[in-house]
């Protein structure tokens, strides 16, 4: 390993919060989940935070609970844990779909949910479905605990509202109620082991023939994963006609601001946002009728 760093391995959450308590900047101490992203980044850059705080092994932070109308995942829950949970296709179908196309088996067995969020990559595959499902994250420090809606968590490219002395300890979302469905689609060069060019997730709840909840999330087309709020507004409270779906798809295309990079051009990504939003809205609404 080219990067030089010390590594702390706390046994429990309280010990971990104590270790990170005095931290003033991300360069002093950085939380380490499964390491599937952080270790690669450290190797590529040849540098790291002075100290890494491993949280992946804390047993209390791993697991999926469904209680009181909410699904709650501990921070150290792995992508494979999502795939192997028997109720995930019902309580988080978009998240289940995304876990299935996430990297490869070995990475899925190690990568944690909190790691995927905290790395802050705009191409993070778990984030669009979690946004579509209406997830919130729990941030804990020795000063206390707070809950932040995931759509208020990111503030820009790889930046967030997490303070240096806080750990992201849990992610939760309401169990989808009534007549609702969610979908995720990853556009990549291959079906496995690919980094996302465009990721789209949608959640729709319907009652009396109209959309009562609409959430559309877009990945890899801006500095961070984003909600397409204006596109959502096109459908909210309306009966989802073909014309409105078409309009929502083109509004979503206008809301994103993708860059050209090694994987795809910005123009291609914009075009694909329109195609995929339209396709997923159609599929989701069809599954509800």
């Amino acid at each position, binding site marked *: 390993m080219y990067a030089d760093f010390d590594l702390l391995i706390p046994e429990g959450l309280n010990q971990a919060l104590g270790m990170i308590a005095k931290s003033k900047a991300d360069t002093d101490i950085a939380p380490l989940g499964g390491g599937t992203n952080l270790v690669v980044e450290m190797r590529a850059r040849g540098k790291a935070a002075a100290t890494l705080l491993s949280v992946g092994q804390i047993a209390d932070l791993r697991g999926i609970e469904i209680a009181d109308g909410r699904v709650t995942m501990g921070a150290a829950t792995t992508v494979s844990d999502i795939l192997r949970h028997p109720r995930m296709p019902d309580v988080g179908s978009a998240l289940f779909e995304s876990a299935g196309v996430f990297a*490869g088996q070995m990475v899925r067995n190690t990568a944690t949910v909190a790691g995927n969020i905290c790395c802050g990559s705009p191409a993070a595959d778990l984030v669009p479905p979690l946004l579509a499902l209406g997830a919130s994250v729990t941030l804990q420090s020795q000063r206390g605990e707070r809950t932040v809606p995931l759509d208020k968590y990111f503030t820009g490219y790889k930046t967030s509202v997490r303070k240096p002395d806080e750990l992201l300890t849990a992610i939760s979302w309401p169990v989808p109620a009534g007549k609702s469905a969610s979908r995720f689609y990853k556009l990549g060069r291959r079906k496995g*082991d690919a980094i996302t060019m465009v990721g789209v997730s949608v959640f729709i709840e319907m009652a009396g023939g109209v959309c009562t909840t609409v959430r559309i999330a877009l990945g890899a087309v801006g500095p961070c994963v984003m909600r397409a709020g204006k596109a959502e507004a096109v459908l909210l409270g309306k009966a989802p006609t073909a014309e409105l779906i078409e309009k929502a798809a083109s509004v979503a295309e206008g809301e994103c601001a993708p860059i050209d990079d090694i994987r795809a051009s910005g123009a291609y990504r914009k075009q694909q946002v329109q195609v995929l939003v339209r396709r997923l809205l159609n599929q989701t609404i069809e599954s509800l009728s």
Partner: protein
Amino acid sequence: MANRKMLTLAVNDTVRNVDVATNETLLETLRRVGAVEVKCGCEKGDCGACAVLLDGMAVDSCLTLTHTVGARAITTIKGLGNAEAPHPIQTAFAERGAAQCGYCTPGMIIATQSMLNNDTDTPDEADIRQALSGNLCRCTGYTKIYDAVLESAKVMRDTAAAGEMESVK
């Protein structure tokens, strides 16, 4: 600054004490102590050549910091079988022509065993494609690998069923 510490690692049922720096990966540690059957490929978590089992579940050793392994049992391809007593997956890979240059084969077999341990012992082609999505092979074109995995899963189920019949008698 990286620190060093003596760790007790269980590699293929042999317990070793190894002096390991905090910034060392499991791939580096294993190859340093002679477990060179664990292959170094991309060191990015893309190719799967370095896969080992930790308590029966496959991980990329190039992304695993050795200090985070803890008490988990490490199994490399040598811990599954050898030329004299091959594991059924190794036999199927040999018989089906699933290994050509052989560099990806240890990782392929480790990922297969992990799928059979943790996901399904009756895999179809979609299960196999998903389980091996983090293992790259530049020789075979994968078809013979999928055939070998299907074959070995069947052999292992049949062996287990025969064992149960035997114990009923």
